[in-house]
């Protein structure tokens, strides 16, 4: 490109930009916040409401991040404290051999190609500082031992890349030592929190959830209004008027779903599914306005915030005097419930071991935490023939199932949802084996990254998932992607519209509601979305 172009440069010359390989190592390459790939900062009013440190208005694109004067000491002290609190943290800092098995497993690396999105390097961002300040080799040998000093540039790099990890834990499946990048990211974010580097999309929901019980800040009367509205709509579709008790003391079961289920689309159709199902089996249950959110953005903020927001589940179960808790379709809520809740806010000795009132099945796998996943519950109902189902009412759907990261890699919930889907849908097609179950690809928008400002990054990160959907869409005419996660339901529709137009996104209990034959129902004209069903006569001609 040394020759001077004559006149106007031709397009091919403009396009001949060759990216030099990073000559200098990654440690010296300062981060560049590119539009569409980073998250906005948290507003001070939400930070203050939660009593978080260094609440202020600031902008990541400006040079001055308004850090507290002793920020460096705060971070290093925070690291020291966490090294003594989490064996995983110390171990994961020490034992990585940089074999690179994880390198091409991250959806953000696959979709963006940014080397620092390789899980190993994401962790090295933190490890380099750990070596510098906490290991003998790093203190003596410095750079040669892979150590570097904590500077403002390093901090900015942490902010960019720890908020470019969706904590999906796919890399940890392939790591020979089980190093879990999600945990490293979580602790990295905790350290950032100590000096007030939070993103808006996690802190605002946290603040709302703390105050009103749910992420969007829906007040109790608003919650009731939403549920009542859904009851009306369900009656219009099915002709059956269902009961939906709220804050009812003495109910047998407390039901907790992600709040998106009662205000967002397509989650809402899943809500109709819960209502229809619970009515049909005559479940003695209650909703709660205080615990009106299963999701927990604390998971994307800090361990302390997880506990603060999660506490309401057991507290409300105790106040209402229920026997056990049933949880709706939500991904990260289930990671919190399964891996943190009992430890943080238990023991739940005031509850009883969950027993299905319909089938009598004792849920042995939930005997301590006393909370059952809705697909565990429903699959048991179906297995015991307690539901009358007409799967042909879902014949307009050709379905596939996206294993949401958290139920997949934190629980191993693979067969229960598939059993339910296959029972209520006639057309089910799996995506390729290296993109499902424990190998599942993230939606690209979890862990607080599902915001608008990060849109391009989300589309890149979601490409591997979308690509697998496209394959079954082309091969089997799949037209709906089913999932059991509220963040999936919020972010996969746009991902599909961009990469695989024509594929909708839905929940499993939406399909259950479509297929569920209810006592006293009128002839079903539409599905839960209000789309007309082909009736039997028409179907025969097709």
């Amino acid at each position: 490109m040394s020759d001077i172009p004559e006149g106007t440069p031709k397009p091919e010359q403009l396009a001949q930009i060759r990216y030099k390989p990073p000559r200098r190592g990654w440690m010296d390459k300062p981060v560049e916040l590119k539009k569409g790939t980073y998250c906005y900062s948290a507003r001070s009013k939400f930070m203050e409401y939660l009593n978080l440190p260094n609440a202020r208005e600031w902008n990541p694109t400006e040079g001055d991040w308004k850090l507290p004067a002793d920020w460096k000491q705060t971070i290093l002290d925070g690291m020291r404290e966490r090294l003594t609190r989490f064996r995983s943290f110390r171990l994961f800092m020490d034992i990585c051999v940089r074999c690179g098995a994880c390198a091409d497993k991250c959806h953000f690396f696959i979709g963006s190609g940014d080397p620092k999105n390789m899980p190993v390097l994401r962790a090295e961002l933190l490890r380099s500082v750990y070596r510098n300040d906490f290991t003998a080799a790093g203190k003596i040998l410095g750079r040669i031992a892979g150590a570097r000093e904590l500077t403002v540039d390093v901090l900015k790099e942490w902010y960019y890349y720890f908020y470019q990890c969706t904590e999906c834990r796919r890399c940890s499946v392939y790591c020979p030592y089980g190093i879990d990048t999600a945990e490293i990211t979580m602790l990295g974010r905790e350290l950032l929190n100590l000096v007030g580097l939070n993103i808006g999309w996690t802190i605002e929901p946290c603040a709302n959830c703390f105050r009103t019980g749910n992420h969007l800040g829906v007040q109790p009367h608003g919650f009731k209004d939403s549920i009542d509205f859904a009851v009306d709509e369900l009656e219009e579709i099915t002709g059956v008027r269902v009961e939906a008790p709220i804050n009812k003391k003495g109910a047998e079961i407390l039901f907790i779903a992600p709040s998106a289920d009662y205000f967002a689309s397509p989650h809402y159709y899943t809500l109709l599914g819960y209502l229809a199902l619970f009515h049909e089996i005559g479940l003695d249950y209650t909703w709660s306005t205080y615990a009106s959110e299963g999701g927990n953005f604390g998971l994307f903020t800090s361990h302390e915030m997880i506990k603060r927001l999660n506490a309401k589940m057991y507290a409300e179960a105790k106040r209402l005097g229920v026997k056990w808790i049933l949880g709706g379709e939500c991904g990260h809520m289930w990671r919190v419930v399964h891996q943190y809740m009992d430890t943080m806010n238990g023991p739940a000795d005031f509850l009883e071991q969950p027993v299905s009132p319909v089938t009598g099945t004792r849920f042995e796998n939930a005997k301590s935490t006393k909370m059952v996943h809705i697909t565990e519950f429903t699959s048991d109902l179906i297995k015991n023939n307690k539901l009358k189902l007409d799967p042909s009412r879902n014949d307009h759907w050709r379905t596939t199932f996206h294993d949401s990261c958290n139920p997949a890699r934190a629980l191993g919930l693979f067969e229960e949802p598939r059993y339910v889907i296959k029972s209520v849908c006639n057309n089910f097609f799996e995506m390729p084996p290296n993109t499902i179950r424990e190998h599942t690809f993230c939606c690209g928008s979890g862990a607080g990254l599902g915001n608008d400002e990060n849109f391009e990054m989300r589309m890149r990160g979601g490409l591997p998932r979308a690509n697998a959907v496209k394959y079954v869409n082309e091969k089997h005419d799949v037209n709906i992607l089913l999932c059991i996660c509220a963040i999936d339901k919020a972010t996969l529709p746009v991902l599909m519209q961009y990469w695989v137009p024509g594929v909708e996104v839905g929940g499993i209990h939406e399909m259950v509601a479509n297929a569920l034959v209810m006592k006293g129902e009128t002839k079903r004209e539409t599905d839960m979305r209000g789309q007309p069903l082909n009736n039997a006569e028409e179907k025969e001609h097709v």
Partner: protein
Amino acid sequence: MMKLHDLLLQKRPAILEKWFQAALETYPADTSRFLRREKDRFANPVGHAISYGMEGLLDQLFDGNDSAKVSSLLDDIVRIRAVQDFSPSQAIGFIFTLKRIIRDVLQSEIRSGNASAEELFALEARIDSMALASFDIYMGCRETIYELKATQVKNATLKLLERTNLLTEMPEHEPDSNDDSDGK
């Protein structure tokens, strides 16, 4: 004098290889190696889309003239580049690169007059129309992005927007009202 069509078919592997290589060079070095090396279409959707798309585009350019097929092949590549770190000219520049590559590969035949200039001009005109089509696709993708950004806000609050006044605004915080709002 050999017909250009036959020459192109003969040189197709070389053209494809160079074209693919040129496209990969627009990515950082570490990435391009991964895009080239990883063969699994699900583990490496970007590399697959580019190589698969380019093969199809060459087929269309040399033998077919199915504009719908061309659009769909271009779409596979451009849709990805529209969300990566490229300016519009970089995102679709790979089409123009093909002209240079074909000229390079056929250099000796062109010099010796073995390749007909008319046929070559006709071919280049078709590449130009591909470039124009890809520009439309690129713009379409960007428009989709803006639309999606707008509609997803609407979707996220769809049921709420149907009814109003349900949200509570977080009160602006003053230091001394701290204890009140915490309910103490």
